[in-house]
């Protein structure tokens, strides 16, 4: 591997960039440990989902074109998010006219884009990680990663290699947490109902740490758990896989 | 043009303009005509393909799985007695109504001395009906009933207890196999007025999703399988 390292462009995602850079660094560590060189193109911002899911196709296209250009030089593009990777992989190609040049570039980006954990297991064929976490965790399957990218077994497989970690599955791990991007602020009451059901399943699992692969969902669930005074810690799965669990968990302070 | 014809033209015209198609395009007409004439099978599940013995066994298992009951007899002459015994076991009166199916006509009803048999459509107070199935389907434990004086459709639904005789040779594997038999009897593209596919007694889950039997149709469905080869009347 060291002869010709795989060149990965990291799509940081806007939420990781602003709220939890440690997830980005965990991703970099995991990729480097697996033999990649990682670069972070400066010209990236957001994948465009807020516009896309609001029906603003024009803005979505403009943002997509910028992202496509920013990541053209890389062999692979990896994002620590099923939702953003799904946007690049499944939705960008549908934004542009059939057979246009920009669509073929969008397809080229789609073909080389992967969600972080599935990239590690499915492309790099990583069998395990060198990490330790002596806690009982439960894993929430975020919708886009699960249904658009079929991310389900991959994080469980790598988590099983973390020393000391016990995975306790919650009921309905594959049911939406109620985040849904702008949905959670447009329809807060319904979102809260979904979130409340999710909380009950998390608590019932008996785990003391909640993991998932998407920061939006994680912030939604952490925000609720903390509002309700729960002791359950919330982390991105990459942090645990990279062994970077010293920083406060999501929604917890330093004291 | 009648109002109905005007509306018909309007709807068909709108469909054609939305699809951007020419109403007289021969290729479209041919595609449809061929498909209707060929009535090719789509994917038939593997479980629906098997020998006659396997079909009968699977039909019985599937029927029992949906709360139907099944018993086997070796000769038509056993049927009246089997019906009489079934009624006794369920504390039902020895009174049945059936259609004029020749195969049922021929049964030695007098062998079951207590049994009162009337022929005709179902009446409001009938508690038990007896029918003969046109065919059955192993795939899902399904009876295929066809309408007519032989086996009036109302007998399938109005009484609370429905007893159905099916010859083992008439148990097909798949729905498609049963349609082939329907076509053989009624002609290509033709159907009797009613074909009922019946899989178990009537049920409902409309109250709190709790399954209750006997919602409107029969509360009990009892199948008597006559184990003899097809065609040997």
């Amino acid at each position, binding site marked *: 591997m060291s002869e010709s390292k795989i060149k990965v462009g990291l799509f940081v995602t806007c939420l990781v960039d602003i709220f939890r850079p440690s997830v980005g660094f965990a991703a970099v560590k995991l990729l480097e440990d697996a033999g990649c060189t990682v670069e*972070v193109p400066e*010209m990236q911002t957001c994948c465009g989902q807020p516009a896309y899911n609001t029906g603003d196709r024009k803005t979505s296209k403009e943002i997509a074109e*910028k992202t496509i250009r920013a990541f053209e030089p890389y062999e692979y593009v990896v994002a620590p998010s099923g939702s953003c990777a799904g946007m690049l992989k499944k939705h960008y190609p549908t934004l542009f006219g059939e057979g246009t040049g920009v669509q073929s570039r969008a397809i080229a980006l789609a073909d080389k884009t992967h969600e972080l954990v599935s990239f590690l297991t499915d492309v790099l064929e990583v069998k395990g990680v060198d990490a330790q976490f002596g806690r009982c965790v439960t894993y929430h399957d975020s919708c886009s990663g699960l249904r658009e990218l079929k991310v389900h077994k991959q994080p469980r497989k790598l988590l099983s290699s973390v020393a000391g970690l016990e995975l306790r599955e919650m009921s309905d791990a594959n*049911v939406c947490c109620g985040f849904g991007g702008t949905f959670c602020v447009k329809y807060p009451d319904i979102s809260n109902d*979904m979130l409340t059901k999710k909380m009950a399943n998390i608590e019932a699992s008996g785990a003391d740490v909640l993991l998932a692969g998407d920061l939006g969902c994680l912030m939604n669930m952490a925000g609720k758990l903390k509002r309700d005074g729960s002791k359950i810690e919330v982390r991105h799965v990459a942090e645990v896989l990279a062994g970077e669990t010293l920083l406060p968990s999501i929604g917890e302070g330093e004291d | 043009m009648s109002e109905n014809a005007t509306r018909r033209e309007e709807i068909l015209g709108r469909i054609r303009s939305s699809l951007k198609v020419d109403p007289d395009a021969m290729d479209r007409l041919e595609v449809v005509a061929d498909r209707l004439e060929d009535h090719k099978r789509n*994917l038939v599940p593997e479980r629906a393909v098997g020998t006659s013995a396997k079909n009968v066994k699977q039909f019985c298992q599937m029927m029992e799985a949906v709360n139907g009951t099944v018993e086997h007899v070796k000769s038509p002459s056993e049927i009246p007695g089997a019906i009489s015994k079934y009624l006794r076991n369920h504390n039902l009166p020895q009174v049945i109504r059936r259609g004029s199916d020749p195969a049922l006509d021929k049964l030695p009803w007098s062998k079951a001395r207590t049994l009162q048999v009337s022929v005709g459509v179902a009446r409001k107070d009938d508690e038990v009906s007896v029918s003969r199935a046109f065919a059955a389907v192993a795939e899902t434990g399904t009876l295929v009933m066809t309408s007519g004086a032989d086996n009036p459709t109302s007998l399938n639904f109005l009484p609370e207890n429905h007893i159905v005789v099916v010859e083992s040779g008439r148990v097909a594997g798949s729905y498609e196999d049963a349609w082939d038999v329907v076509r053989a009897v009624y002609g290509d593209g033709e159907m009797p007025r009613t074909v009922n596919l019946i899989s178990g007694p009537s049920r*409902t889950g409309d109250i709190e*999703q709790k399954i209750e039997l006997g919602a409107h149709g029969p509360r009990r469905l009892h199948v008597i399988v006559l184990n003899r080869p097809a065609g040997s009347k």
Partner: protein
Amino acid sequence: MDSTAHNFKKNAAGALNDAQLQRALAHVPRGFVKKRADAADALPEFERLRDQGRDIKNHVLEHLDIYLEAFEEKVVEAGGYVHWATTAEEARNLVVRLCLDREAETVTKGKSMISEEIGLNAGLEKVGIEPVETDLGEYIIQLRGETPSHLIAPAVHLNKDQIEADFRRVHTELPEERNLHEPASLVHEAREILRDKYLDADVGITGANFLIAETGTSVIVTNEGNGDLTQILPKTHIVIASIEKVVPTLEDASTFVRLLARSATGQEISNYTTFSTGPKRRGDPDGPNEYHVVLLDNGRSSMLGTEFQDMLRCIRCGACLNHCPVYQAVGGHAYGWVYSGPMGSVLTPNLIGVDEAGHLPNASTFCGRCEEVCPMRIPLPRMMRNWREREFEKHLTPFTIRRGLGVWAWFAQRPKLYQRVTALASRLLKWRAGSKGRMKNVPLADGWVKYRDLPAPQGKTFQQMWKERGNV
């Protein structure tokens, strides 16, 4: 039926605060969802059947005009009549006229969503004809003056104690001290009451799950047997169906039969699948003397050739409702019109306009469970997004959202500036949160902090830290 779809948010809030409703809705994920999964697992060919079901429907839609003509020809050949209705009102008037001409006093009805769509019961009552719903769930909601809250389980929003109270209120001829505590006793009582109605009815009206072009046959699928009693006992059988229900052959219908019950209730097949062709034949001792099919368009023909054409593949199994977390939270009535859940969120704006029903395609997290279980593989999330696009184009999207999005998009397309702003935001939010690591109040984020804290950023953006580490 009048729509309250524009009031979705208010309807939803009411539903979330309705303890009875919430108790009833809890049965949905526990029942239907598990049963469907088990049924799909039990048939190895299920996924391939879904592909075929999709392909058959696509083929039909591309040749819909020809299949409808073929169907009509066979119905007429079998001695039946076909009536065409371009609008809901036309269909309602047609059916009412057919009933009046037969001097009908009582009409029994099998379950039909088209009947809801055209407001048939109100139309019949207006001219003094008594419509009697015979599906147990439909019967219950008719007693309550309600509309169905689910495609296949119209009374799924009710608990048995509510139904008991309704039966006691309406069935006053029965002894007061009777035991009605168990679903079985309620089912039995409805059975007894409806028995006479079946026998007295002058006309029986059913919907159709499928219309078969090859044979001119209408197909109904039920578990109770109510649809059959409705259509074989009265002198006249009227079928009301929308134009996209036509399928080519008996073989094609068989494919859909394999998909429908498994997706809907998790059964291998429903108890009764009934194929009706024309009126009773010479020598038939029972069955109707007349057989009519009313074909309803009501906006469907205009969906062909658009991004919503795929919606016309829907076979009304209800799987998308059962699996939708939004439906599970608010139930069907909150959607405000006949159709609810994901299929309603796509179909309703097509039928009554996006100005009225604009909320529905927005009230989704795009979680994708609906598409995952749809037997016809209808891309429901994609079409909800298509509606959002039309709303955005028509400026129906709320102003605050448009403006917020505009500001964000302006920055998002200017990466250098964007990074300076995000760095500032990250620092400010971290400062605001202090040592707690989260915030209970955040300006412009009312919807978020109403129910949850906002986790604080770590203080610097990834891009800042990446550069600080000497990376470019």
